[in-house]
């Protein structure tokens, strides 16, 4: 029981309307992507959602201009960068979160408060100095330029620390009495019990890196180093008014995250409240 004493069936009416409003743009994207140029114009007056005829010419068109738009290369880049960033974040953030939650060292709380404070720094403040830094480190226009900065944020450390702190101290003490050092406790006690939090952070990092926009825009330069979101804008620059191919390209870029989200949606939604992200 919350605000209402019983569940309110009539609430489904506004909820359905809202759900349709939220889904409609994506539906229209799919619909347009499968329409012929002729049908895009003709179908409009009748507000026809189902393509007539259903055609994949937009997709084959997008995928045939590999020289100009190396879509597979961009997809491969996005996959590799997202996977590598996720692996990096999970590794360094879980080690760090262990240090900030389970180990006693003098500078700990001071260092951690610096981490937390930087979470309020707008990302754009970092762009210009990072650009120079990445150039000087020889990382410009490499995968490293997009992977390493992803592992530097404080968010994941904060999230995992919140979760690690809920694991009972007694478990750790038992492991220590059995002769485990810090690494043993980390591997045998903390990590196995933190799978939900690690999965949540992993999914967030993957989707965040997949969709990242400003970093790939600024830290890469050559056509073959771009990621899918930047590829979309390159595509748009060329096919400004050809909506069929453009939305086919947009669909290709959106499908992997949409599928990943639908597969893991329980984990993602639960994870947000589980890891104490909500207003606590």
């Amino acid at each position, binding site marked *: *029981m919350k*605000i209402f*004493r019983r*569940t309110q069936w009539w*609430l*489904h009416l506004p909820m359905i309307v*809202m759900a349709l409003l*939220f889904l*409609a*743009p994506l539906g*229209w*994207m799919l619909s347009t992507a499968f329409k012929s140029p002729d049908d895009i*114009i003709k179908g*409009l007056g009748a*507000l026809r959602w189902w393509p007539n005829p259903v055609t994949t010419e937009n997709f084959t068109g997008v995928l045939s201009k590999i020289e100009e738009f190396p879509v597979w290369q961009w997809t491969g880049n996005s996959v590799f960068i997202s996977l590598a960033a996720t692996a990096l974040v999970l590794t360094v*953030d879980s080690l*760090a979160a262990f240090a*900030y939650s*389970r180990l*006693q*060292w*003098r500078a700990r*709380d001071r260092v*951690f408060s610096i981490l*937390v404070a*930087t*979470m*309020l720094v*707008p*990302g754009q*403040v*970092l*762009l*210009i*100095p*990072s*650009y*120079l*830094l990445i150039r000087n480190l020889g990382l410009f226009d490499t995968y490293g330029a997009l992977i*390493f900065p992803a592992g*530097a944020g*404080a968010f994941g450390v904060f999230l995992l620390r919140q979760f690690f702190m809920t694991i009972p*101290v007694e478990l750790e003490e038992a492991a220590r009495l059995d002769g485990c050092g810090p690494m043993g406790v980390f591997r045998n006690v903390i990590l196995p019990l933190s799978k939900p939090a690690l999965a949540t952070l992993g999914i967030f990092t993957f*989707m965040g890196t997949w969709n990242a*926009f400003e970093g790939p825009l*600024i830290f890469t330069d050559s056509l073959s180093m771009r990621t899918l*979101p930047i590829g*979309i804008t390159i595509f748009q620059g060329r096919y400004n008014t050809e909506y069929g191919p*453009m939305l086919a*390209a*947009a669909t290709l*870029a*959106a499908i992997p995250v949409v599928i990943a*989200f*639908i597969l893991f949606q329980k984990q993602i939604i639960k994870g*947000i*409240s589980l890891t104490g992200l*909500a*207003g*606590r």
Partner: protein
Amino acid sequence: MNTSTVSQAKPKAARWRGDEASGWLFALPHLILFATFVLGPVVYGFYISLHRWHVLSNSHPLVGFSNYSAALSDDIFWIALRNTIYFVLLVVPLGNLVSLSLALGLSSIKRFKTFYTVAFYLPVVISIAVVAVLWRWLYNTEIGLLNMYLSATVNGLRGLGLPLAAYQPIPWLSNPSWVMPSIALMSVWWGAGGNMVLYLAGLNNIPDDYYEAALIDGANPWQRFRNVTWPLLKPTTLFCLVFSVLGAFQIFGQTYVLFAPGSGPARSGLTLALYMYQQGFSQYEIGYGAAIAYLLFAIVLILTVIQFQLLAGSERAARRTAKAKA
């Protein structure tokens, strides 16, 4: 999430020999990345902003705060600031209202929750590049879906005999005064699901006892919302507001892609972040660009401090009321 209390909370754990060294060791891999790509750039960016610094020139003389004073007397900077504030004022209240309403709806029904949650959250997981390309199509004045449906609706109502004027297509992205509202609407669609999940978690954290007590007192649903939900949800609300403002001030991808990569008609889509990008990465004046970024940082910081104080104040007030009621 109240960061001030979180950072003060000291997890209790037994003290073990050797923790001093291993503490640093475990934190080190992340700290190296953090120092290189976050803390270093924050300091370095400020240093850059104090110099006249063109990417291609070898010398960059120290000029003190003249980049900042140049920005403050730059008309285009003020246009960008005004547009950004306009966007924040549109998107934060509207977005939070939508997110809270959806969360309230979800918490009051039993069936099909998964379907609704997926529908509302789905846009959140999509890249801004895809979102903007898609909405540029929906917003097309002549053949966009939005104008098509609006015109069909108006014509339908006229057919029923309502005295309405013929539908004039809305110039969503071509008329300067429509640009920011259009971007805000698109951004609400894109982001509402994120805050909705946070509001939902906040709603679920309110114990049922409070509602039962209110029910015994004879409170109707509106009174239960006003006297139980709203005050107890305040920490969540303020958290969402703080981070919505923080995020909204950084608006970049929306206008970059919609106007690929311009700033819209009569600079109506020019935001602070986009202006920084133009100065830093199109004009290569990175000293000036960094100064704009730091002005943005200063504005956001001041607003965040104000909002955190409101949060602390409202928590004190809530505690006082709770005590008075008890």
